[in-house]
């Protein structure tokens, strides 16, 4: 299935819509910002030196600067410190590194876009004795907190190092945070106290912000294996499976699997994918860029064409920005004689 990019949703809450638009995402569909192709204006030839000189109007090319919080081993009280640190690490990265493509280098310096993501969400929920599908409140609290701490640190950086060059005229400068203005915060309940958010909006108005974007949640399929946690913000695929990559087959079990936690680990291969969409849409509410949302269709659970259509439509309606890889589990040859109850979706 193709990776789907909901261009309308993406651009409606693009914080930098004052100076461009977002036409596409990176391959994993989580990281994006304004994009514009370069244009050749003229070519000149110096026949004496046998040299052709091109004059190019500079375009803009988004550059992914990514880091991920490993939620499986971050305690709640460490969240602020780790998020702030992530902002500083990535902001420094922009200064230290030089993308090989000039357009990307220029874009990096003008927008200073970061991509703070996370992995191990499924483990985090299990640690908190929550089923993935029942974790929506905890998830929202978590990602609202990450958003708050991250933005706050970027404002601190603005005080120290100045705002990003394209800041003026942006949503941030108008007091809009991830599509939400002061009125929104006054009329909606949040986990971070309302006054804190309104103070932050005022701080941005006074000091500006260092980064044109801050959050993007990468798939981390391989990295999470190295870190020993579940991938990205998805449920675990299975309580025991074999991960197949280019140089081998690795048997994988979730990190906290034990007698006590066994029933808290919901297996994605048997889950209703709307539960994944629900979780991702809650995270999306507090993520200014995208989330690599993978869906998993187990064709043995009677999935019809309309179910797939409905999943995409539901993802769009709930405000998800993209749908990344859709994995399918092929039809089995053997027909089960009697319907077996799945071990971990039955409560």
């Amino acid at each position: 299935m193709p990776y789907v990019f909901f261009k309308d949703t993406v651009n409606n809450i693009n914080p930098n819509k004052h100076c461009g638009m977002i036409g596409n995402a990176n391959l994993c569909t989580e990281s994006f910002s304004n994009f514009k192709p370069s244009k050749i204006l003229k070519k000149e030839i110096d026949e004496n030196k046998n040299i052709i000189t091109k004059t190019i109007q500079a375009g803009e090319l988004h550059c992914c600067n990514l880091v991920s919080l490993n939620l499986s081993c971050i305690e709640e009280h460490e969240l602020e410190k780790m998020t702030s640190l992530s902002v500083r690490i990535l902001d420094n990265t922009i200064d230290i590194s030089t993308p090989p493509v000039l357009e990307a280098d220029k874009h990096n310096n003008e927008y200073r876009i970061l991509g703070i993501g996370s992995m191990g969400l499924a483990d985090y929920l299990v640690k908190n004795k929550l089923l993935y599908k029942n974790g929506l409140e905890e998830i929202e609290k978590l990602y609202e907190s990450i958003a708050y701490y991250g933005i706050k640190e970027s404002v601190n950086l603005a005080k120290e190092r100045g705002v990003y060059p394209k800041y003026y005229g942006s949503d941030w400068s108008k007091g809009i945070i991830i599509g939400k203005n002061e009125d929104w915060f006054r009329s909606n309940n949040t986990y971070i106290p309302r006054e804190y958010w309104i103070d932050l909006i005022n701080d941005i108005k006074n000091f500006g912000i260092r980064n044109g974007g801050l959050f993007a949640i990468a798939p981390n399929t391989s990295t999470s294996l190295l870190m020993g946690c579940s991938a990205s913000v998805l449920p675990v695929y299975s309580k025991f499976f074999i991960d197949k990559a280019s140089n081998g087959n690795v048997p994988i079990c979730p990190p906290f699997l034990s007698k006590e936690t066994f029933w808290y680990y919901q297996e994605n291969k048997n889950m209703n994918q709307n539960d994944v969409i629900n979780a991702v849409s809650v995270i999306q509410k507090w993520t200014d860029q995208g989330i690599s949302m993978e869906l998993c269709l187990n064709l043995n659970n009677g999935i019809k064409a309309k179910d797939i259509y409905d999943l995409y439509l539901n993802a769009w309606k709930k405000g998800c920005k993209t749908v990344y890889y859709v994995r399918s589990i092929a039809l089995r040859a053997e027909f089960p004689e009697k319907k077996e109850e799945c071990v971990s979706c039955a409560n």
Partner: protein
Amino acid sequence: MTISIDNLLVKKNIFNTKGNDDILNRKIIKGNTTNLFNLNFIKYTWAKTLYRVMLSNFWIPEKVDLSKDSLDFKRLSKDEVLAFERIISFLTFLDSIQTTNIPRISDYITAPEISVLLAIQDFQEVIHSQSYAYILESVIPADRRNQVYELWRDDKILLERNKYIAEIYQDFSNNPTLKNFSKVIIANYILESLYFYNGFMFFYNLANKNLMLGTSDEIRYINRDEATHVELFKNIIRELNLENDNLIKEKDVHELFSIAVEQEIQWTNHAIGNNILGMDKKNTEKYTKYLANKRIKDLGFKELYSNFNENPYSHLEKLADNKGEDIKSNFFEATVTNYSQSIAIEGWDEI
């Protein structure tokens, strides 16, 4: 011995204007079909599901990259190389005669929905032979290839083994009695459900050591197809018994299976023996008898070997991904083998 006309099967006509396609009249054998195929008008409803599964399993051998396998092949032990060659040769031969045999059975099948499944099976056996050839050509040095192709008759034990099954096939073709039909159906079930599997386990065992991963991808695809062939013959046997007064008898199943099991063990001891890390003669016996018991019980008959109900290779079967959900592939790095073509999904008109 004289054979009564009742016991002789007659090839179905190709063009049969007096045929009756009424579902109530439809029979697996000795029916009167016009051969008209209509998926919406079938007696054996399992055939429709199986049709979709088989079509959605479509795959192409060359889409699996075997370049790394040819490097791995140089790292195999002498015994592993020998076993590899023998098993590939054996499997190539089996799938090749299967391609010839299936249409001969189909000649007598008078339910169109089952004939079409046999046609798809036949096509898949072609793909299998070709994929073994692709593996062989990719990893085995050019000067060895022809010898490996010819092992099926140059290796005495292998020849003996192939003779047994091929003669049952040949007998039915020469002399299509009901008795021989029953034997050929059981032999097919045995070939599809028992004969390949120690060979498959050999490749999964290599994959378990992170060797020959492309080959194990090919095997996994083949394994997935074979599962549908087993299911097909299992269902054919069940329906035949309902319609023909228990044509396929437990006694015959036991008899053919016990010979097949002995030969499978003998062959595997010859090809794999005790010289390959992760497999040995004791487990070969355990696995073969365990598998035979399972296959026989699937037909609703009594098991043949008591005390052989434990699978010594369950960790290798995990790599076979029989359920299609044990392996999670990194789609950037490795071949995803558990996809389905979109035909697996129904209800496009509801959108």
